[in-house]
């Protein structure tokens, strides 16, 4: 071999994507030195439980970790936790870190994730206003969820609604303020929005749609006491959670002159413009061969799939990112599973009804299934995964006919 020397691969960011990358590199017996730099004090962990069973106090912190820290370290990976990467010097291939040290890299993977979008409104810095992104946030919020307290959630997306469900379980008095005309508008169709509206209303959550927030009122002690509305009036609050989306963490890449556009731009092999630098997860706007356009996605599936692609790229294999995105959410006794991106549909087909134990919405475009949202109906999600991945043309009548088994729709070559 021309060059037997060990190279150093540095991963910046210690979240889900970084964790999945470490795992894949270990499984594939990657020969080079690997150093992970993560700002949080924790080894890579899963965020989904932070608004679900971890927030509800049903699982402990350790169960969030993708693996025990020792597994990576015993295998020779270095984890530098509690350390922030401050600057990339692309000419010298070094990164300066918050502990004043400098790391040399041969290859660099940016897995910096996203951060919460902050509200820029009067009173937004008051005590008692929470955001939810990491373990510390979830711990701080959980402490406040005591029976009888009034929690106002700004934002009716899936994280806000999962918190509403977790808080209701603890007899917290919950109000959700959503600026749009329906819940989870960005990610799902009207039937699902309506279903979740009913679910939360029945659980006692006060839901207010078309309701824009203008600011926050303070108590004499400087704690938040209410949320003021554009329509006039104030909603009294003991605790506020602002959950209005995330912003990709691109500062490091931008300062280094890498092309970014609401996400670090990467190709289907997770490569940036700089051959030595790759990027994965929430922080990227990427090419996924599955779509025609560049996409930015915020999901575990995207983080782990891109991690597997970058591992292949690092090892000199060509494994393009081409999987259909998928997602899940738990609220009360409901498990929502989604596959595909529904926003581009031109036809919706309902299988079953929201009154049934389980039902699903199929989203079609030009007669092909492009997305499925399934409520307590895993078979629709699983069949949907195949239909979406294969861009199957399906007769809509068959999708809704309860006498036709969903499974039979994927067993043949093409069903019309």
């Amino acid at each position, binding site marked *: 071999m021309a060059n037997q020397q060990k190279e150093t691969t540095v991963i910046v960011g210690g979240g889900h994507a970084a964790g999945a990358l470490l795992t894949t590199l270990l499984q594939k017996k990657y020969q080079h030195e690997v150093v992970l730099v993560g700002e949080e004090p924790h080894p890579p962990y899963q965020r989904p439980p932070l608004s679900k069973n971890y927030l509800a106090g049903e699982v402990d912190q350790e169960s969030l970790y993708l*693996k025990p820290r020792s597994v990576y370290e015993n295998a020779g990976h270095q984890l530098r936790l509690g350390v922030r990467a401050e600057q990339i010097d692309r000419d010298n291939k070094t990164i300066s870190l918050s502990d004043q040290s400098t790391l040399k890299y041969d290859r660099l993977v940016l897995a910096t994730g996203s951060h919460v979008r902050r509200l820029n409104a009067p009173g937004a810095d008051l005590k008692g206003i929470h955001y939810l992104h990491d373990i510390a946030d979830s711990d701080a919020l959980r402490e406040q969820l005591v029976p009888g307290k009034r929690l106002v959630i700004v934002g009716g997306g899936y994280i806000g609604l999962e918190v509403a469900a977790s808080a209701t379980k603890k007899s917290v008095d919950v109000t959700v303020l959503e600026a749009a005309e329906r819940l989870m508008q960005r990610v799902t169709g009207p039937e699902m929005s309506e279903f979740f509206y009913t679910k939360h209303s029945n659980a006692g959550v006060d839901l207010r749609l078309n309701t824009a927030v203008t600011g926050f009122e303070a108590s004499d002690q400087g704690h938040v006491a209410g949320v003021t509305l554009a329509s006039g009036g104030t909603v009294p609050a003991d605790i506020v959670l602002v959950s209005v989306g995330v912003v990709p963490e691109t500062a490091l890449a931008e300062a280094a002159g890498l092309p970014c556009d609401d996400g670090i731009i990467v190709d289907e092999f997770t490569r940036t413009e700089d051959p030595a630098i790759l990027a994965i997860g929430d922080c990227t706007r990427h090419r996924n061969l599955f779509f025609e356009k560049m996409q930015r996605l915020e999901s575990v599936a995207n983080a782990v799939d891109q991690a597997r692609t970058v591992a292949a790229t690092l090892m000199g294999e060509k494994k393009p990112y081409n999987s259909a995105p998928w997602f899940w959410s738990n609220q009360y006794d409901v498990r929502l599973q989604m596959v595909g991106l529904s926003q581009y549909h031109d036809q919706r087909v309902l299988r079953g009804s929201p009154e049934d134990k389980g039902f699903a919405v199929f989203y079609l475009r030009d007669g092909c299934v492009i997305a499925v949202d399934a409520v307590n109906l895993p*078979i629709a999600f699983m069949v949907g995964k195949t239909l979406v991945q294969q861009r199957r043309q399906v007769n809509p009548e068959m999708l809704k006919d309860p006498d036709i088994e969903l499974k039979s729709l994927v067993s043949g070559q093409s069903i019309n």
Partner: protein
Amino acid sequence: MGKITFIEHDQTEHVAEFKAGSSVMQIAVDNLIPGIDGDCGGECACGTCHVIVSDDWFRKTGTPGGEEEQMLSMTPERASTSRLGCQVVITDEMDGMTVHLPEFQM
């Protein structure tokens, strides 16, 4: 404490130690066993933790629940003793158990 053997599709064997209370998926993940992804972290939401329990141990693990059954029904290489690894909670009685891994996960 006990041991469980994972057999990959190509017959490679991995023996892993477990503590009761964990799941078959988590043990595989903690031990870097290839062939189990566990992408949803054990929520029964992804179907990437399919294992085939060896016949004589299936009585100990029990049969899949309703939602798990729906997830399994579409996994490639479905067998009569298939389970989702995240839904099998390990008990001390499972010491010595063998599970097989499919070639592909969902």
